[in-house]
């Protein structure tokens, strides 16, 4: 488990326990002391192996229960957040873990979304088939383009991936077979069981989206804690050194690019499943920029943080925007600046608290 992940589990645990341990301390100084105490007062159960399972499990249970308490519109929004969060996870695999900042994941997101749409219109409404087809097409596209793209790094990589994203956008916008600028509409609702009923209710679609999100997220998290993830972090930190240790980094980077493409493709099929409409706008530059922004806000390298960043970005863009005269992107810009300034400080304070807890000066 990466340090960031442990950090996450512990602070989450601290939050959930804050209610129990916060006594009648009311003034600000005491509150600060209390919050410090709660960090130290986390029961060992929550801290250990069980805790690492408990917190994510609680999050999944809460997410799964959302359709029982929320109406149709908020649930659609939640589906959109999850689909976008999966795209952000794919960006994070490259940007946060491997150290390759990318604007190109929308290409594979788009490949997944369009494939799912075409399969839905012309072949079957089975969501699993759409998912599989979308992932396959996206992975194939990612490996084909990645073979060239991963030969670059840094700002060149950023620019080449931008080109990949924009080219895909242009193809989608000008190719009449996929609807051109109008996109693809009239996609029938998905069904999960073969020959089963079509899921017209947004709650059921949400559960499908959530299920795919959780499975893919867990697979990615597993891979990032395995030797593969360690190798990718090695590339991020010092690629020439890894080569000097005898590791061919090209194949590792291509594998990471393929994996990220597959995840983005899965995200694309989920996007289609909840919106039942795809257009070139869904793979435009602003989507790519927002995905990268989510990774930065959420903390590159950790997997759950960028998902929170994704939620924030979608909420501001699609919801809060209406209350500020449609100036959501401006607000996001401010959030971004604030995030870049404040997050390192917050992390430093948390780090100091954790260090004190461990008994280091």
């Amino acid at each position, binding site marked *: 488990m990466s340090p960031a992940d442990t950090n996450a589990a512990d602070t989450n645990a601290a939050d959930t326990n804050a209610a129990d341990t916060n006594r009648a301390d009311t003034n600000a100084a005491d509150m600060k002391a209390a919050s410090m105490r709660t960090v130290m007062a986390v029961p060992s159960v929550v801290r250990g192996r069980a805790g690492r399972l408990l917190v994510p499990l609680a999050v999944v249970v809460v997410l799964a229960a959302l359709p029982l308490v929320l109406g149709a519109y908020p649930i659609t929004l939640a589906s959109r957040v999850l689909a976008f969060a999966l795209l952000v996870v794919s960006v994070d695999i490259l940007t946060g873990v491997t150290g390759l900042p990318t604007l190109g994941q929308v290409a594979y997101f788009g490949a997944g979304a369009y494939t799912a749409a075409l399969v839905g219109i012309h072949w079957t409404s089975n969501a699993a088939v759409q998912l599989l087809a979308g992932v396959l097409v996206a992975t194939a596209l990612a490996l084909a383009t990645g073979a060239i793209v991963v030969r670059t790094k840094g700002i060149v990589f950023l620019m080449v991936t931008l080109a990949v994203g924009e080219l895909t956008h242009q193809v989608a916008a000008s190719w009449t077979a996929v609807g051109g600028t109008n996109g693809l509409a009239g996609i029938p609702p998905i069904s999960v069981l073969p020959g089963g009923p079509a899921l017209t209710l947004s709650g059921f679609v949400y559960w499908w989206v959530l299920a795919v999100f959780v499975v893919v997220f867990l697979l990615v998290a597993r891979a990032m804690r395995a*030797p593969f993830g360690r*190798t990718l972090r090695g590339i991020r930190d010092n690629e020439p050194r890894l*080569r000097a240790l005898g590791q061919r980094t090209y194949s590792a980077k291509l594998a990471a690019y393929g994996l990220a493409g597959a995840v983005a493709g899965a995200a694309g099929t989920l996007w289609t499943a909840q919106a039942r409409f795809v257009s070139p706008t869904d793979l435009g530059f602003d989507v790519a920029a927002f995905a990268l922004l989510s990774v930065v806000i959420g903390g590159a390298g950790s997997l759950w943080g960028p998902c929170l960043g994704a939620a924030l970005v979608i909420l501001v863009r699609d919801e809060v925007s209406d209350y500020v005269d449609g100036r959501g992107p401006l607000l996001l810009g401010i959030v971004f600046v604030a995030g870049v300034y404040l997050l390192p400080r917050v992390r430093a304070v948390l780090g100091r608290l954790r260090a004190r807890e461990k008994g280091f000066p």
Partner: protein
Amino acid sequence: MSDILRLDAVSLAYGRLTAVDKVSLSVPKGARHALIGPNGAGKSSLFSVVAGIRPPTSGRIEFDGADVTEVSEAGRAAGGLVRTYQHSSLFLGCTVLDNVRLAAERVHGRPLRPFRRRRRDAEVTERAHAHLASAGLPGRHGHLAGSLSHGERRQLEVAMVLACEPSLVLFDEPTAGMSAAETDRFAELVERLPEELSMVIVEHDLDVVFRLARQVTVLAAGSVIASGTPDEVRADEHVQRAYLGADSTDELFTEAS
């Protein structure tokens, strides 16, 4: 005894400047071979050619009986020809243990396996711990490599090189920037390394060279001007001239006080 490394008329030119000029060299198995020479002699260029960072302009490099002239740096390292860095080059954002595990994984695991396997992973971790211990760094495995001191980073480097289980180590000025005490510690560490491990040391510090090396090759202006035991090289008049441009060498080879 067979040679672990053999260079056959290796040249490297940058445009019209020939940095390495038809250098031939053979290093037997288990050798402690030093490569010295005044500034600009082509030591670093030769080093990068042997390590596989730059392809030679002409000539042939044989490692362990196989022609590796066309093999990449990673390929040579995987085959057992491992280099060190003049300045510590670590994975600073990873833990000390992960730094060594990255090396051990390549030898004993599958670095691209996307899931954990308890037995295999534990084996790699165990090896990493053993290498950390033999480099004198036990108990620091959980710290970030970026939080280590300069001396500790050099020790971690040694642990990483050992974890590659090399048959030949190329040291690139290993004691550059070290204090006298650190240099001494480092020399002790190298002296303790197993006998069957071959070494080529590129070094400025002649005290270290004469302490560690059993064979010395002297480069000047891209060519080999002398080769032999430390005593032979010390007495060689070409070497004396290359270093000092004169025949007074007393200062150069007297013991440092």
